[in-house]
């Protein structure tokens, strides 16, 4: 394969939000040749502020204002097969997947990055709040954003050296407030646009249960306590997440109980008191590493905006230094060294 890519040409993924708008503007200021691309991933119903025609319009109009070309790529088939299908299959198996992370893995930093290279772009940029740092030995890692409240390093845990070498995260050094100020100064129409929060193919109006209900036959299940005594019931075991407290027809009055195990095949949810939510170990699988496997004592983060806590990675088991909340199988378990991402994995059934 010949390179024939130009390191001065950047394809910037523009969602139609303020972060990627400012990312494009900063790249232009830095002297890059910039082309904006918006992905069309989901043809169905959406109200989450992702993939909607109005967001494509926002991205296009920002690109127009910046004087850069803008294209729309329809990666809907790939999104369906690599993100939505596995999301449904994970729920069917009682796991709680993170589809945005799989979208990053397979679509944005998979298919789109490949396409950028094929079209002659040496670099891909996004509006994620995170940084790419270069280490003394020349390798690169994702590091936490300047704005810790907005940090998205967790969802970029899967990136390897090839991807990191071709990635720019122009707003990682700015706080969200600074991003909005830059957008306002530049007169960008997205300056005050609210952040998108939700999964693009799940509508706020109808929710996850409605979406999955169209693709799965739900399993009604028993809810039992630690001794096996039936204490409640659920209409869909597939929709129960570890740590969930409501929606299981539990009798009131007693101390609050939480889902601690979800068994779709056995049509059973096990609940327990808050103490049962704490564990000493979390089994993981599907590792990805920025620059080679790591072990020993690391900082480990198990949700997008959670804390990172010390633990020992021992083979495919995370051994927590202090008892830790149970992690739902399917969730990403990300390893840090200080502020830098070493790699990621996915929690599995114990």
């Amino acid at each position, binding site marked *: *394969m*010949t390179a*024939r890519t130009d390191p001065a040409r950047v394809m910037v993924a523009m969602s139609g939000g303020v972060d990627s708008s400012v990312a494009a503007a900063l790249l232009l200021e830095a002297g890059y040749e910039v082309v904006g691309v*918006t992905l*069309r991933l989901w043809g169905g119903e959406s109200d989450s502020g992702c993939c909607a*025609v109005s967001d*494509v*319009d926002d991205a*296009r109009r920002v690109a127009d204002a910046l004087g850069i070309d803008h*294209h*729309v*790529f*329809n990666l809907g*088939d*790939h999104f369906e*097969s690599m993100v939505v299908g596995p999301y449904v299959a994970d729920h069917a198996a009682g796991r709680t997947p993170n589809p945005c992370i799989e979208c990053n893995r397979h679509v944005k930093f998979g*298919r789109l990055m*490949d*396409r950028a*290279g*094929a*079209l002659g772009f040496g670099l891909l940029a996004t509006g994620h709040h995170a940084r790419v740092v270069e280490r003394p030995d020349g390798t690169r890692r994702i590091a936490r954003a300047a704005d810790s409240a907005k940090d998205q390093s967790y969802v970029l845990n899967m990136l390897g050296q090839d991807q990191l070498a071709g990635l720019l995260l122009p707003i990682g050094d700015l706080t969200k407030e600074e991003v909005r100020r830059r957008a306002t100064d530049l007169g960008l129409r997205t300056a005050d646009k609210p952040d998108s929060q939700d999964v693009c193919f799940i509508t706020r109006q109808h929710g996850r249960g409605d979406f999955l209900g169209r693709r799965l036959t739900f399993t009604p299940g028993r809810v039992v306590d630690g001794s096996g005594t039936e204490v409640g019931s659920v209409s869909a075991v597939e929709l129960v997440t570890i740590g969930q407290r409501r929606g299981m027809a539990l009798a009131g009055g007693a101390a609050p109980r939480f889902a601690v195990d979800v068994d779709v095949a056995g049509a059973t949810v096990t609940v327990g008191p808050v103490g049962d939510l704490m564990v000493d170990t979390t089994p993981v699988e599907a590792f990805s590493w920025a620059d080679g496997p790591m072990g020993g004592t690391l900082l480990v983060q198990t949700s997008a905006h959670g804390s990172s806590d010390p633990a020992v990675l021992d083979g495919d088991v995370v051994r927590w230094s202090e008892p830790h909340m149970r992690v739902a199988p399917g969730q990403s378990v990300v390893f840090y060294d200080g502020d830098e991402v070493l790699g990621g994995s996915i929690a599995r059934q114990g």
Partner: protein
Amino acid sequence: MEGAYLDHAASTPARPEVVEAMLPWLAEHPGNPSGAHAEARAARRAIDDARDLVAALVGAQPGEVVFTSGGTEADNLAVDGVVRSTGRLPVCSAVEHPAVLAPVAEAGGIVVPTDAGGRIDLGALAEVLHAVGGIGLVSVMLANNETGVVNDLDAVAALLVEAASDVVLHTDAVQAAAWMELEVACRGAGLVSLTGHKLGGPKGAGALVVRSGVPLAPVLRGGGQERERRSGTQNVPAIVGLGEAARLVVADRATTVERVGALRDRLEAGLLAVPGTRRTVPVGTPRTPAIAHICFDGVESESLLFLLERDGVSASAGSSCASGAQEPSHVLAAMGVERGSALGSLRLSLGHASDDGDVDHALAVIRSAVSRLREHDPVGGSA
């Protein structure tokens, strides 16, 4: 940068004579054709002159020409107009433009499959006509907007006469009008849709030809313009442009068809010489002389179009949705083209102003882009 505009099936440039004819009606004459004073009468005269020219293009009476805002409105009016007037069901082919498919679906109508060339399956249509009562309209496009494939409307009309003489035949002739003798090809159709910007006219003016005796309720209601069939003040400059474009087509169609057809054939032959390419339309299927539709193995159209644009070649693939993204083509799906191949297809459509330079430029650019994409990304199309 040298460029080649090869997206005439999406929209043609207005011909210079058309622009010339339109300008006074934008800049000088304010009249509303429904008024009584001299300026109004002048505007009325202008659109009636255009009406004569459009009627001549189709082989209709001037009074049968209803001006619309374009092809979509004409198609909507044809389907909804007959459905509302008769209370009967619409039927259409699977490769119709969405402007026909959507109102047919909304009315609970029936969609008839096509053969591998994208022509309506006459056997299936005959079956529907025999099996289903209460059909009021059959809509079959004359030439397809993606492939240029031409239907035999005489054969469709003969089926309708055989089955039930009062079923109206509608044809969307938007893509055929610049290339075919409508007077002959559409003689069996009671309703014919046209638009200006596919035949060297402006955007914003089209027509539905409504032959006398065809039952049609208006969709746009109001001031009763266009003999109560389409209310709303007529777009005088655009209608004048449509008329002039129709006049030019009638005047030079024979020579244009020959010249553009030769260009298309050379373009197509040049592309088919690239390994791993196929004609989407089977050889022998009748089609207009203006469109080359090619599938490239191992290439994604979106990437190809991106590289073509950078080198000044404007083309398209499938159809575009409101966001501008490429959507999988319902036309190719109806023809039985496998989805992976459809995602590697390219539509190059020529027009009146196309020349040898366009073909040469496009051939050079497309060859180089295809080889680049295959070299870089052999997974293309494997999703």
